[in-house]
């Protein structure tokens, strides 16, 4: 493991962008881990929510982008409800997703691969949510 520079210069603007888009102050987080402890979708996550926030605090945005966590987040707001520091982690996850999918071609859910994922009983509420979360 090579030594990491705490806030690498070239990553500063992305971090500020995420903070500004999410409207949350990640410096407030005291790494208590309550979000990760209660996250129902944490089984499928390689980086737990509090680790995502920690990496943001250290400016390690690349490791977050490579992780599966931000796509496993179901935006169920359990973390936001219980965070003792009043941080809305769901907002931060959304902001990270948006910085990725707002670059051209990065959408995770293309329109034409929807039919393969859909069955007749799935309510369109699921598909619309999917597009809102994974496609820009």
């Amino acid at each position, binding site marked *: 493991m090579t030594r990491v520079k705490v806030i690498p210069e070239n990553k500063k603007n992305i971090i500020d962008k995420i903070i500004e888009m999410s409207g949350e102050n990640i410096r407030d987080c005291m790494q208590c881990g309550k979000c990760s402890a209660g996250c129902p*979708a944490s089984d*499928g996550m390689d980086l737990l929510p509090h680790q995502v926030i920690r990496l943001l605090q250290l400016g390690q945005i690349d490791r977050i982008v490579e992780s599966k966590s931000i796509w496993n987040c179901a935006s*169920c*707001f359990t973390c936001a*409800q219980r965070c003792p520091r009043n941080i809305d982690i769901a907002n931060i996850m959304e902001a990270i997703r948006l910085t990725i999918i707002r670059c051209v071609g990065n959408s995770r859910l293309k329109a034409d691969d929807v039919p393969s994922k859909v*069955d007749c009983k799935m*309510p*369109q*509420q699921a598909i619309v949510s999917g597009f809102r979360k994974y496609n820009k």
Partner: protein
Amino acid sequence: MNMKYSYYPGCTLKTKAQDLEKFALDSAKTLGVALQEQKEWQCCGAVYPLATDEIATKLSSVRSLAEAYQKGEKLVTLCAACHHVIKRVNEDMKHKEDIRKKVNNYLQLPNDYEGECEVIHYLEMLRDEIGFESLAQKVKKPLKNRKIGAYYGCLLLRPSKVMKFDDPENPSIIEDFIKALGATPIIYPYRTECCGGYLAIDQKDVVEKMTQNIFESASKYGVEEIVTACPLCKYNLEISGFGDENNISISYFTELLAEALGVK
């Protein structure tokens, strides 16, 4: 009691969740409540746009809110997702000045909308406007000793600062509703855990894990039926197959209501 409300159905209720709406409207009639479907409503977007710079995705909710407010009526929603989105958008219009300014500039409504309309869910209407006691009196066929567990999911309860629906960790509104219908509500710890929501598209394994926990917990506490207010939760719970395994049926709470009022 002639209570008139603007009613926002949401697109899923017109297609995949028709009986959620059908039973709701029939029950409302017998309860003497006029649910007037809005003339022009558009899709609420299913998820509340969390980013601070998202404006366009909130316009459809504002149109419905403004129309309801113009008619001087409260806006009643039925689907949990629509309630979540519209209520949070309404909160933005009330408190976030720059969003309010930009939306009003863009929409050019007859008069600016500032979050005055009150958004209530069908269950809140039953609890606060009609009252569970008077609902109980109207019940024709009490659902004697049916063990029903409420499944709240996420969108009605959280974040409680905005939704103000019930105690997010220890809700009782659906249990009281079940009691009012004569059935016996069962409290099981996983009733407020997430069902996986839109992960149903891409991460079916994660959804499966989540729904499994929910059913295990429910069956351990002797739940025979689960009622919910969100079409996506109902889909995720049904598709997982654990319902049949633990022979727990899933239905919309309105179905229960209609049955108890004898209009099913």
